């Protein structure tokens, strides 16, 4: 399942699931463009993968022209883009009655609109290569909802409709587009999970634990490889069976 010779873009790569994905794709032999919102945010990651096969780029995911420029810079640096992992995401939780328009817009722009902009920009290169793998990081919250996360859930559910449409549009050019919906994964984002919620996951999920970023990264690696060439438009749930 080697990814040698492939160039991947991973957004939100400086921490959590994105970081694990970037490392995993790097281990598989891909060249990895590691994106984050801060200049130098991915330098330690790039050092780990190797300066010859990885580079770090700063990109404001709320800015569509910055996204276009960043993808162009990646193509200039690495020659093409074959794999795009739309992983960057933020949460601005609030109960609906108290959710501001700004909180709504921010989450929708960074989580969903950015995925649109990145995919559009990368599809050009993938169409030329007649090969592409787009993996969108959704969430079980997008499938089942979560009180206090109407914006986050909407953005994650939006990614699923987007995934299916892109799969239908670009399939004829050898490009697959799939989504991964992680459950509760041990990262900074879930560090402050209330104890009852953590208990609930441990007691309800058949696999009896929270997930690790690697649990998700390994699935992304499969979806980024030749081996998943007949899978497209799908949402793979990685939640330890929690939502069964």
């Amino acid at each position, binding site marked *: 399942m080697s990814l040698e010779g492939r160039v991947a873009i991973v957004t939100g790569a400086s921490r959590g699931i994105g970081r694990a994905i970037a490392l995993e794709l790097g281990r598989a032999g891909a060249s990895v463009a590691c994106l984050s919102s801060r200049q130098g945010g991915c330098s330690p990651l790039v050092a780990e993968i190797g300066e010859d096969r990885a580079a770090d780029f700063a990109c404001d995911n709320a800015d569509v022209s910055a996204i276009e420029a960043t993808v162009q810079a990646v193509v200039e640096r690495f020659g093409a883009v074959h794999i795009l992992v739309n992983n960057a995401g933020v949460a601005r939780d609030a109960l609906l009655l108290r959710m501001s328009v700004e909180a709504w817009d921010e989450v929708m722009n960074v989580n969903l609109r950015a995925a649109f902009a990145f995919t559009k920009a990368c599809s*050009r290169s993938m*169409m*030329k290569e007649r090969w592409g793998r787009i993996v969108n990081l959704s969430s079980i919250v997008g499938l089942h909802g979560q009180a206090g996360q109407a914006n986050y859930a909407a953005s994650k559910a939006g990614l699923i409709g987007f995934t299916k449409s892109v799969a239908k*549009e*670009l399939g*004829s*050019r050898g490009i697959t587009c799939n989504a991964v919906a992680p459950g509760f994964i041990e990262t900074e984002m879930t560090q402050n999970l209330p104890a009852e919620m953590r208990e609930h996951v441990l007691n309800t999920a058949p696999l009896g634990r929270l997930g690790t970023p690697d649990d998700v990264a390994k699935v992304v690696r499969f979806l980024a490889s030749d081996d998943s060439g007949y899978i497209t438009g799908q949402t793979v749930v990685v939640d330890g069976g929690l939502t069964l």
Partner: protein
Amino acid sequence: MDRNEIFEKVKKAVVEQLDVREEEITEESTFVQDLGADSLEVVEIVMALEEAFNIEIPDDEVDQIKTVGDAVNFIESKLKEKAGAE
């Protein structure tokens, strides 16, 4: 580049993208009806022409390009613009 050179280059790009014979292509040929391009192929032809001529064809202008002749006209005026600006 004169108009005929542009036409030749456009024909080449179309032959590559659409798997049609050069003899089938005239200035009046419509991409969709005559040459059988689907919507994705139209996008790919536009991309190929952008690269071949080193110009940009904005999305709203793509809609105006229905025939091979339209494409040639557009490219000709874009190249004139570029030459004028340089």
